[in-house]
């Protein structure tokens, strides 16, 4: 006998989906960072800068700079746990567990506030 938790099969399916989500997010992030590192090592599209922020992403991506791939990889990596919370929110909504839906929303709000305060500072 093997179960996710006391609630049974629904959570087993949720666990499998979350596992897949984390794997895909990590793989995409690693591939993007490796691509950026290889481009930087070959010296393609200009020198590497040492400090970077989210604001640099659109320009770096538009000009296919190594930095663009690297920032995008970092964004995908950091977005993976966020996507996991969103997936949990949807799972709890499907189970009509509104209390946990609210908790997931609070976590997402705090993460959004982190970006806002970081950009503002």
């Amino acid at each position, binding site marked *: 006998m093997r179960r996710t938790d006391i609630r049974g099969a629904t959570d087993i399916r949720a666990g499998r989906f979350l*596992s897949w989500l*984390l*794997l895909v997010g990590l793989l995409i992030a690693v591939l993007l*960072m490796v691509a950026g590192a290889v481009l930087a090592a070959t010296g393609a599209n200009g020198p590497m800068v040492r400090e970077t922020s989210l604001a640099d992403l659109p320009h770096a991506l538009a000009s296919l700079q190594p930095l663009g791939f*690297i920032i995008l990889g970092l964004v995908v990596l950091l977005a993976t746990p*966020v996507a996991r919370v969103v997936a949990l929110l949807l799972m709890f909504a499907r189970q009509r567990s509104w209390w946990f839906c609210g908790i997931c929303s609070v976590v997402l709000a705090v993460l959004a506030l982190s970006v806002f305060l970081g950009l503002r500072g």
Partner: protein
Amino acid sequence: MSNVILLGVVGLVGGTLGSMVGLGGGIFIIPVLTLFLNVPIHAAVAASLIAVVATSTGGCITYVRECLANLRLAVTMETMLALGAMTGGLVGVMLDTQTLSAVFGSVMVAVSVYMGTRGRVVDPAQVVGPAPGPFGACYYDRSLDRVVEYRVRRLPLGLFLGLVAGNISGMLGVGGGFITVPALRLGMGLPMRVAVATSSLMLGVTACAGALVHLARGTVDPVVTVPVVLGVTVGALVGSRLASRVKSSVLATVLAVVLFAFAVQMILAAVGIKL
């Protein structure tokens, strides 16, 4: 180029050791980067936070599939952890290098003492039977070949410790697993395997909140961060395979001694004494 390889090796070792003893790896990565590779501490903190997200994500692929992490408890504690990490991240970027190094060294002393003594801590009695309440859960234990049921106790205490762990994580760039694992195990009565898996799951969101502040503020150095993150990702996968072959108590003791030495060195460096 040689520095990039060294950074990757640091990440590899940090990810391997971290995943073997249930930590994010930041507690090892930051002192090595700052003491031996002359990386500024703010860049080291940012790189470490992103590395912790990678360690957590890589480790939790298995933990979530194996149904070990308590999803409801994790997301509930993440409210406090993320809040703490966000405020810690904002405070961390405002502190000067000496203060941050001194605070980090002091936390490392506490971590090394915890790691050196945790093998002798007596575990609370296993809760077996019905698992009431919104957080009650069960999992299949391979070693026992049966389903273990447990209940969650003292949630307010866990939430408070989560806030503290999140704050330290955001400020210092470590995962905070050295607080959340004992909090879940000893404070809230979870089985050890569930405590490690749930803590690992939570640390991804905690480190993410702190890392987003650094990324948005432009304190992430890609030349340092990318090799460390790639090394950590491989290390986390290697460590999870090695964990069952190495006696964890021996590993924890060795790591405790190494961390204590790093801690002393960082505190001395913060007051201007170089060894």
